[in-house]
């Protein structure tokens, strides 16, 4: 459903992505691995459409994402290095706005997602008062709430404790169970069933 075809991308003088090609199918998770600076984040940003590849293309449901950007983005949840949260708003308020601009969302749904990611006890505090791990849990609730078919996750377990890492794996498994797709950049293997995972090493080609 998501197809990355022959993507080449330069950052300044560096040829970061060299002919990256892979398919992601519903119910399967593509784990991007590779050393620091190999281009995992660049690849995720290129798939999301935040970076324009110099060559090659990304297609979603058979259509180039560049041509139907808004349609593609409506089905996409992207979580980058830093949780995209406003420090002066509470976790709950953050979700009401960030999910609200995508779809109509109820307070009950937000509370359920916060409970699912273990973020409920601190969801009413201003985000700037929270630890990095607590922020990540709130951001993960946002990903769950987006109801998106495709998740692009960049180091989703950063700053999380062991239980949090299991939570990320469980959330991904649930997303795959809904026939969703996940593309995640990781440094440490996620505790996921091996048959659900395709591994792609970035930066060796």
């Amino acid at each position, binding site marked *: 459903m998501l197809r990355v075809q022959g993507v080449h991308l330069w950052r300044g003088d560096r040829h970061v992505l060299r002919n990256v090609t892979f398919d992601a199918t519903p119910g399967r998770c593509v784990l991007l691995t590779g050393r620091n600076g190999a281009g995992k984040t660049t690849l995720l940003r290129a798939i*999301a*459409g*935040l*970076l*324009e590849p110099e060559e090659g293309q990304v297609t979603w449901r058979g259509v180039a994402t560049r041509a139907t950007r*808004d*349609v*593609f*983005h*409506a*089905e*996409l949840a*992207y979580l*980058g290095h*830093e*949780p*995209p*949260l*406003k*420090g*002066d*708003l509470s976790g709950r*308020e953050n979700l009401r*706005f*960030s999910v*609200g*601009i*995508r*779809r*109509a969302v109820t307070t009950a749904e937000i509370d359920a997602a916060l409970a699912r990611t273990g973020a409920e006890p601190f969801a009413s505090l201003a985000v700037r008062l929270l630890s990095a791990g607590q922020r990540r849990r709130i951001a993960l609730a946002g990903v769950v709430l987006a109801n998106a078919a495709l998740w692009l996750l960049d180091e989703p377990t950063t700053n999380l404790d062991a239980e949090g890492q299991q939570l990320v794996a469980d959330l991904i498994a649930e997303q795959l169970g809904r026939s969703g797709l996940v593309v995640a950049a990781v440094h440490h293997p996620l505790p996921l069933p091996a048959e659900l995972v395709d591994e792609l090493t970035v930066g060796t080609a």
Partner: protein
Amino acid sequence: MKTTALAAAKLVAVRDLRLAFRKPSQLLQPLMFFMIVATLFPLTLTPELSRLRDAAPGVLWIGALLSSLLALEFLFRDDAVDGTLEQFALSGQSLTWMLFAKTCTHWLLTGLPLALSAPLAALALGVPVAALGSMVAALALGSFALSLVGAICAGLTLGARRGGVLLSLLTLPLSVPILVFGSDATRHAIAGTEIAGPMYMLGAIAVLGVTLAPLAAAAAVRIGLE
């Protein structure tokens, strides 16, 4: 159910208003700057009211322009730093509408308070009371146009380090027409003559800004996010 473009824009505006009231210092800074510039002038120039009155349009408009430049830096920067702007761009909603909402909110929080507090500074500069209404109207319209023009430049400088200097360099030449017609309107208001001409020009610039600036700002922000 997918949120409509207008509902999403409204949410962005509500969010920005709420954030602004949680951190009022950022709002007060440009306003304080304007008041300080405008009230220091009578002390340094001359106590003679007739001469102060001649200088008033220039002082008020340059103060307004510099203060709006100061405020422009905050228009997209915070959202770009914490990643929420990126999420706007990836929300599947029209970035144009969302940035238009942001720009209007920005004007509500910086340009409009500036226009409304300008009479205080204007009185110190010897502007007759009868001219205050027209002056406020001209400043309100002019600062709105400045916000719109500035939004494009703020988007373009997102990716640049030390974007502040670049932002001023980009915005200043584009804001010259606003400065010229705005101060002209104020001069006419002080002289008690017809201000319609320059006001129409300011209005035309604002309309042009409303039509084109959000589109250009959205394109600029997408480039800036790269």
